[in-house]
């Protein structure tokens, strides 16, 4: 068969191929990017942002307290723009994410357990979101002093699946007095960070793709203990630092935080 005829037949075949229907990706891609903070959207909310002076004081205080931590984080050492911490968490602004950070589902959650069993091992009384009912998974991690509780909620309306946790909602709780700076975040350019007060206590909203890491007792940064994370609200509730992560906006995160009992 001459090449020209072969080409003609191939073109005809090509026109008759029945492809699977093309998924409508435009909207989901745009929503995903909006979740990551690609576009600045400031919702009208009832919370009170920290005053500039209070934020600066917090930055100064945490810089003094967390100097050794910053020195141990290579990506942040030369490019620290600002740093604010709750008792159990730090958020550091960096120019870009390290190249080797990956999405890793389940990292740092610890062993599966039950709420009853976890309560006896924790140095604090766990907080549960009142409106969501019992969690679908409970995990206990003994690494931080006082323990870490992780609550997992599967996908449901208002809680779409996050590609970074694999579930609808992930809540982590630690006692910040016992485990200062145990949760760490590196937030690159473009990620939105808001310092808030929720019912009088400090909170930080991180909107966009960032790096989440656990620090061990020596405050050493280890890539094996890091992962990519999506939108996260860090809330101080007494001694407890609560970390709320999911593919939702600040409104939803605040509603969950306020319902913690």
């Amino acid at each position, binding site marked *: *068969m001459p*090449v020209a005829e*072969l*080409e003609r*037949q*191939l*073109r005809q*075949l*090509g026109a*008759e*191929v*029945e*492809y*699977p229907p*093309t*998924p*409508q*990706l*435009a*909207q*989901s*891609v*745009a929503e*995903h*990017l*909006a979740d990551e903070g*690609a*576009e*600045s959207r400031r919702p009208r909310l009832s919370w009170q942002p920290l005053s500039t002076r209070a934020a600066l004081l917090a930055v100064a205080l945490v810089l003094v307290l967390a100097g050794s931590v910053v020195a141990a984080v290579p990506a942040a050492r030369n490019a620290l723009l600002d740093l604010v911490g709750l008792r159990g968490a730090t958020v550091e602004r960096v120019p870009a994410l390290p190249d080797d950070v990956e999405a890793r589902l389940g990292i740092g959650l610890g062993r599966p357990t039950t709420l009853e069993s976890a309560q006896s091992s924790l140095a604090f009384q766990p907080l549960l979101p009142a409106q969501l009912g019992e969690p679908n998974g409970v995990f206990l991690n003994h690494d931080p002093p006082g323990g870490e509780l992780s609550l997992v909620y599967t996908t449901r309306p208002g809680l779409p699946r996050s590609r970074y946790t694999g579930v609808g909602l992930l809540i982590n709780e630690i006692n910040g007095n016992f485990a200062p700076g145990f949760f760490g975040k590196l937030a690159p350019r473009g990620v939105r960070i808001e310092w808030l007060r929720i019912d009088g206590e400090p909170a930080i909203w991180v909107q966009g793709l960032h790096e989440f890491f656990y620090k061990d007792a020596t405050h050493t940064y280890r890539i094996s203990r890091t992962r990519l994370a999506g939108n996260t609200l860090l809330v101080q509730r007494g001694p407890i630092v609560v970390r709320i992560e999911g593919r939702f906006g600040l409104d939803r995160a605040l509603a969950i935080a306020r319902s913690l009992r």
Partner: protein
Amino acid sequence: MEDSQLAEAKLVARAKRGELRAYEQIVERHQATAFRVAWLITASSADAEEATQDAFLKAYRALSRFRDEAPLRPWLLRIVANEARNRRVAASRRERLALRVLEERHDDAVASPETALLESDTRAELLGALQRLDERDRLVIVCRYFLDLTEAETAATLGCRRGTVKSRLSRALARLRTEMEDARG
């Protein structure tokens, strides 16, 4: 510059400034071809959808590095093809998963480009020969004749130089012809 290219250049400029609506329109323009490229590489609708979505997300994050005067589609297709290849490689490392995907494909009425073709003797013959080609040869043929991609777009999809596309296509067509002749005995 043609009207459609000009319109696309404007969309790219707006997307670079952070206008998500503009990027949404870019995705709408290219999602069908991008998805088909991903499907031809992964042979799985689910993998292709995920690869295409991730590729568009990566492309947005890399948009500041895209040269304004360059055509957008080859640049996008290179990212899509890389994502699709990564998924295929990851799947083939896990035998159990590959088996599941294979069963899924048997159940799927449009599981591969070849089985989706209309039945006829000549077409079946051509189809059989295409299936016997190795993936490299098959892909260059489907890019050029099924998806009607340009040489530059095909090169981006295959991850090779533009000049290589011509020689690779020529060899692939020769092998296809040999396959058909061998089948006839």
